[in-house]
C-alpha cells in the first residue's frame, strides 16, 4: 500500500508557514501582534513557522512531483502532511484565535471575581485546539493526505510528557511526592475496589469489571490496555472501557478548570486535583493547561500526580491478576510479572530518566524548582530599599502565623530572602493576601531577586508547549461521535458514579488539606 497522496495541500501549507515567518520577522504583523499582545510568542512563531515551512515545502514538492513506492520512506514521509496540518491549526489557534478570544473577553470586563469569561470557561489554545480537532473530524473529516500524520499526535504527547521530567528536581519531587503518593494511593485503590464491588452488584462480567477498574483507577487508556490480558478482557469490553474513560475525561477537561476557578484554587491544589480526578494522561494535561494557559506550574503538579498514578499500575495489575484468578476458577493462568514487563508504559521510564538527569544539575542548578533556582548572592541594587523595609514593618503586625512572621523578620533584617524555605513561606503569605497590595508587591520583588530562570529549562518549556498543542489538537481529531457513543450502558453508569465520587472526594480533601505553596 502506498500512503502518499498526491496533493498540493502540503506545499500550500508550507508556503503559508513561510509567509507567517517572513511577515513576523520583517514586522508586517507588528500591528496585529500589538493588538493581540502576542509579542511573547514571537520567537516561537519564527522557529515553528520556518521549521514547518521547510518540511512542508520540501516534502510537499516530493509529494507532487516525486515517484512513490510502497516502503518505509513512503510510509513515514506521508505523515508530514498531517503533522503540518495539525501544526497549522494548533499554532493558528495559539498565536491568533486564543489571544483574540482573550481580547474580546477582556473587553467584556470581569465576570467572576477578577476573572474574565475566557478564564472562567477555560477557553484557551488547548481547549480551542481540541474543539477544532473534534469539529474537523466530525464535520469535515480528516483529509486523506493528513490521515497518516494525525496518528502521530499521541507520539507528540508522549514526547512532551517525557520532556516534562526535565522540569523537576529531586528536592521538588520529595516535597510533592509524599502528598501525591498518599492522595493517589488512597483514590486509586479506592476506585479500583469500588468498581470491582459495583461491577459485582450490577452483574457485569469479571473481565469487564476488571478492565474498567484499572481504567477508572489508574491512568485511563494505558491501564486498560495493560490490565486487559490479565483479566482476559474481550475487544468490545476494552472498547467500552476506553469510550467511558474518554467521555468522562472530555467532560472533566472542560468542567475541572471552571470548578477550579470558582473555588479560587492555586496551581498546586488544581494540579493535585486534576492529577487525581482525571483519568487520561492527555486530558490531565489538557485540564491543567486550560486552568493555567500562561504558565506551567499547574501542569507540572498535575503530571507529578499523574505519573504517581501510573506508578501504581504494577500493583493494580497484580491485584487484578490475583482477583481474577480467584473469581474465575477456570481462568487461564496469567503471568502477572510478564504482563507488567510487557505492558508498563515506557514513556514513564523516560520521564523518570530525564528527571534523574535534571536532578544532577545538567540543565539547571540541581536545586532548581520549576525551572527556577534559588541564589541570594545578589547585587546591591537588587536588595530591598529602606523605604520598602519601612513599609513592610508597618504591616508586619497583620501577620499571624509564626513561620510567616519569622521569614518576614529575616527578610526585613537582611533586605533579601535568606533561604528557599523562607521564599516558599513568603510566597504563601502573598497568596493569602494578608498584607496590602504595596507590601505584597515588595514581597514579589524580593522573590524575583533571588529566583533565577534557567535558560535550558525555559527552552524545554517551549518545546513542551508546542508538543502539547500539537498532540492535543490531534487528540481532538480522534474523538469521533461513534467512539463517544460506545460509552453507553453499564460501564458508563459505573464509570460515572466512581469518577464523580473520586472527583468530589478528592476536591474536598485537597481543599481541606493541601496548602498552596507556590
Amino acid at each position, binding site marked *: *500500500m502506498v500512503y502518499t497522496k498526491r496533493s498540493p495541500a502540503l506545499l500550500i501549507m508550507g508556503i503559508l508557514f513561510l509567509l507567517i515567518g517572513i511577515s513576523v520577522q520583517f514586522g508586517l504583523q507588528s500591528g496585529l501582534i500589538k493588538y493581540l499582545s502576542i509579542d511573547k510568542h514571537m520567537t516561537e512563531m519564527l522557529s515553528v513557522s520556518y521549521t514547518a515551512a521547510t518540511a512542508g515545502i520540501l516534502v510537499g514538492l516530493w509529494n507532487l512531483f516525486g515517484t512513490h513506492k510502497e516502503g518505509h520512506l513512503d*510510509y*513515514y514521509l506521508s*505523515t508530514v502532511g498531517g503533522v503540518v496540518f495539525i501544526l497549522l491549526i494548533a499554532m493558528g489557534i495559539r498565536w491568533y484565535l486564543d489571544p483574540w478570544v482573550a481580547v474580546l473577553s477582556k473587553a467584556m470586563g470581569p465576570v467572576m471575581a477578577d476573572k474574565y469569561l475566557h478564564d472562567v470557561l477555560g477557553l484557551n489554545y488547548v481547549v480551542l485546539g481540541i474543539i477544532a480537532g473534534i469539529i474537523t473530524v466530525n464535520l469535515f473529516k480528516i483529509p486523506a493526505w493528513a*490521515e*497518516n500524520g494525525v*496518528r*502521530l499526535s*499521541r*507520539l507528540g504527547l*508522549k*514526547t512532551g*510528557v*517525557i*520532556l516534562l521530567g*526535565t522540569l523537576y528536581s529531586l528536592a521538588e519531587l520529595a516535597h510533592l511526592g509524599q502528598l501525591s503518593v498518599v492522595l493517589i494511593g488512597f483514590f486509586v485503590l479506592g476506585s479500583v475496589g469500588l468498581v470491582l464491588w459495583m461491577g459485582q452488584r450490577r452483574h457485569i462480567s469479571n473481565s469487564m469489571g476488571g478492565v474498567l477498574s484499572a481504567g477508572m483507577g489508574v491512568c485511563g*487508556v*494505558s491501564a*486498560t*490496555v495493560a490490565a*486487559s*490480558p490479565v483479566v482476559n478482557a474481550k*475487544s468490545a469490553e*476494552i*472498547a467500552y472501557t*476506553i*469510550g467511558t474513560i474518554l467521555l468522562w475525561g472530555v467532560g472533566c477537561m472542560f468542567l475541572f478548570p471552571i470548578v477550579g476557578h470558582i473555588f479560587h484554587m492555586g496551581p498546586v491544589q488544581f494540579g493535585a486535583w486534576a492529577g487525581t480526578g482525571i483519568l487520561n494522561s492527555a486530558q490531565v494535561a489538557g485540564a491543567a493547561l486550560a486552568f493555567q494557559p500562561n504558565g506551567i506550574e499547574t501542569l507540572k503538579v498535575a503530571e507529578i500526580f499523574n505519573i504517581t498514578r501510573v506508578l501504581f499500575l504494577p500493583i493494580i495489575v497484580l491485584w487484578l491478576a490475583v482477583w481474577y484468578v480467584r473469581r474465575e476458577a477456570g481462568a487461564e493462568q496469567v503471568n502477572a510479572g510478564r504482563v507488567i514487563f*510487557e505492558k508498563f*508504559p*515506557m*514513556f514513564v*521510564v*523516560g520521564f523518570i*530518566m*530525564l528527571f534523574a*538527569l535534571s536532578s544532577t544539575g*545538567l*540543565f539547571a542548578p540541581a536545586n532548581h524548582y520549576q525551572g527556577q533556582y534559588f541564589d541570594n548572592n545578589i547585587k546591591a541594587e537588587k536588595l530591598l530599599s529602606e523605604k520598602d523595609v519601612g513599609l513592610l514593618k508597618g504591616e508586619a503586625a497583620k501577620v499571624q502565623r509564626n513561620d510567616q512572621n519569622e521569614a518576614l523578620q529575616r527578610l526585613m533584617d537582611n533586605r533579601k530572602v535568606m533561604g528557599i524555605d523562607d521564599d516558599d513561606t513568603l510566597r504563601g503569605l502573598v497568596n493569602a493576601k494578608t498584607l496590602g497590595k504595596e507590601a505584597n508587591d515588595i514581597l514579589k520583588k524580593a522573590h524575583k531577586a533571588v529566583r533565577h530562570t534557567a*535558560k*535550558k529549562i525555559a*527552552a*524545554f518549556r517551549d*518545546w513542551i508547549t508546542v508538543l502539547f498543542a500539537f498532540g492535543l489538537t490531534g487528540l481532538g481529531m*480522534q474523538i*469521533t461521535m*461513534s*467512539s463517544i457513543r*460506545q460509552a453507553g450502558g453499564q460501564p458508563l453508569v459505573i464509570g460515572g458514579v466512581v469518577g464523580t465520587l473520586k472527583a468530589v472526594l478528592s476536591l474536598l480533601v485537597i481543599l481541606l488539606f493541601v496548602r498552596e505553596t507556590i
Partner: protein
Amino acid sequence: MSDPNSQDIDLQVEAGAKFHRGSALSIFTTDRREDFVALVFALLIALGVYLFV
C-alpha cells in the same frame, strides 16, 4: 492490522483495515515501540537544548 488488544480497538473497528501498519491512533505497530520513539525524540531534543542553549 495491529494487536487486537491495542487501545485503538474502538476506532479500528470503525476504520476497518484502513492502515495495514499500526492502528487508527498510531503509526507504530505496538504501544511499546511508540514509547521508545518518543523516548528517542525526547533525548534528541534534550541533547540539542544541552548543547545549543
